[in-house]
């Protein structure tokens, strides 16, 4: 087993009387790719929100590299090494690409306000280095647009990539990708698969929600299937593909044609 990075123990969240997710358990090791799949409303995004601190789970623990992170606010969790992207893209539209990425980067390094005001040497060299790192991440995700242009003017696919770059700039151990391939055409999806593999090669653990079975089956080490907020199955892609419960509950009936493509 690889070195354990993210350990999710019996996490549950309810809204009023509705159990959004219940008793979710899984572990992810370093450099592993775990896909979370499930029909709409299965609680995938709720799970992500519980992991990243936007919701406080009612039950269970989230342990990131041996540290319990549930109960922390999102920015604290982010600083401890878990970054995320959003299903509906949330970029800083009026900031340039570099600035978007730098928001993720510079918060990890404390700079004194005094240094900013007098523009001390260490501050300037730090700024320069941060900018170079940001440029590196932008080219890492494969955006070729002018890094000084505004994020809001990017194409849809590039906006998704920029979100990934921004999350990577926070220097994470785990990156949570919420439907990175949503709304993309097949060639763009191919690029996204390559990008996810590249992220893994950096030693970063990837947890992703995805609807495109091609993405899920191609790159996942393991797959977690959710249904009605409950964990239906977890295992290797070929196990999931042949798992009777999954076929019945998730793919079942006419859904099969649509989903397995």
């Amino acid at each position, binding site marked *: 087993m690889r070195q354990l990075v993210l350990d999710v123990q019996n996490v549950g969240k309810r809204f009023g009387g509705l159990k959004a997710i219940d008793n979710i358990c899984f572990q992810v090791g370093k450099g592993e790719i775990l896909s979370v799949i499930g029909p709409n409303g299965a609680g995938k995004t709720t799970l992500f929100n519980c992991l*990243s601190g*936007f919701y406080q789970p009612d039950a269970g623990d989230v342990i990131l590299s041996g540290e319990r992170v549930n109960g922390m*606010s*999102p*920015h604290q969790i*982010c*600083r401890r090494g878990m*970054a*995320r992207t*959003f299903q509906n893209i*949330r*970029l*800083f*539209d*009026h*900031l*340039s690409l*570099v*600035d978007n990425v*730098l*928001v*993720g980067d*510079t*918060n*990890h390094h404390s*700079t004194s*306000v005094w240094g*900013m*005001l007098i*523009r001390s040497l260490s501050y300037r060299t730090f700024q320069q280095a*941060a900018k170079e790192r940001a440029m590196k991440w932008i080219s890492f995700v494969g955006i070729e647009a002018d890094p*000084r242009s*505004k994020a809001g003017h990017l194409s849809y696919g590039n906006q998704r990539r920029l979100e990934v770059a*921004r*999350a990577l700039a*926070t220097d994470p151990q785990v990156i949570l990708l919420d439907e990175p391939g949503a709304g993309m055409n097949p060639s763009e999806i191919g690029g996204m698969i390559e990008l996810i593999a590249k992220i893994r090669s950096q030693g970063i653990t990837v947890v992703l929600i995805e609807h495109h079975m091609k993405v899920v089956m191609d790159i996942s080490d393991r797959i977690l299937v959710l249904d009605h907020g409950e964990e239906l199955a977890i295992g290797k892609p070929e196990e999931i593909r042949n798992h009777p419960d999954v076929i019945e509950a998730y793919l079942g009936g006419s859904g099969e044609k649509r989903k397995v493509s």
Partner: protein
Amino acid sequence: MKTRAWGSTILLGILLVAITYPFIWLKLSYEPLSGVLRAIPDFKRGFAFLSGLAPLVGSGLGIYFLFRFLKQNSFFQKKTTAVYHSYKHIRRNSFFPLILFLVFASLAFFSGPKTLNVLIMVGIYMILSLGLNVTIGMTGLLVLGYAGFFALGGYTFAILQQKIPGVTWWMAMPMACLIGAAVGGLVGLPCLRLKGDYLAIVTLGFAESFREMVRNMSGFTGGDSGLVIQAASKVQPLFGLGVKSMVYLWVLAAVFLTVIILHRLYYSPLGRAWTAIRENEIAAEAMGVPVVKMKLLAFSLSAVFAAIAGVFYTAHIGFLNPESSAFEISVLVLAMVILGGLGSIPGALLGSFLLYYIPTILRDYFPTIADYRLLLFGTIMVIMMLVRPQGLLGSKDRV
């Protein structure tokens, strides 16, 4: 504007006329006991109102057509672009601010007291609108009761010099900053933790309560009649320059310092975090920006600038009453920031210059213009939001 918006604007106008018509043209007066109502034609009042409105509408239209003409005139456009480019070039020079400062400082030597008064007030409003720009422009938090912090600074100074003889304005300055930051944090904390626009109303309530508190605690604050600053605490003449010139120089220095500080902060990781919060709070939080802390910092910082402006104002006027916390001043500063451009430092400077200077010139020719000021500011706020939300100089670019 779309035609439907025009339609509603016209509807608004008709409604306003409908409700005021009897008051403009007729004076309704009641006999309290018999309940008989008399309507006396009062054309004078209607005429006075319309004639007061005329210079405003006239100057507004004039500026609009001038703007359009200049925009379409290619010769002028070329010139302005050339000037702008050379300006950009000059700005790179690190001595540029120093030279600019010296140019403005030289005004202190050969300006009359009347000009100096206007310049000092413009300077004070510049500090205020730069400070307010931190919250509403850079961080995207609406603050409605900014005058409360302005008055807070002023009263800190006024009360200190009253209680401890010998306290001068510059000794009161650090104290005013501290109190401004502390009260800013205290007022901001409850609402900055929440989503939405509570801060606007809470600051409005703060300004109003501050005014009321000052009125009620008359033993301490002088109540409605206000506090007078002793001559020894005011700005002292120096280098053979008069008091007015010295106030001007100090205010000028403060404006320059504020601009430099804000410029550096805006283009630092701190400013980037503020802008990120303005653009998308949730994403900023997810990227590790401590949103509440950053908002509090922005809000306290802007309260500090207001307090500094308050001390200068009190030292300049030599007197302070509860009206310094009035809604009017908050609106004035807000309109300056919005006209100049949200988040833009030159915009805040231009906005405060225009909105203080133009009414001041017009006052010589149309004495009633002061009453119409707020009407003008309100209109500016609505029109700017609908037509040019980024303001005159505003661009939301960074880097």
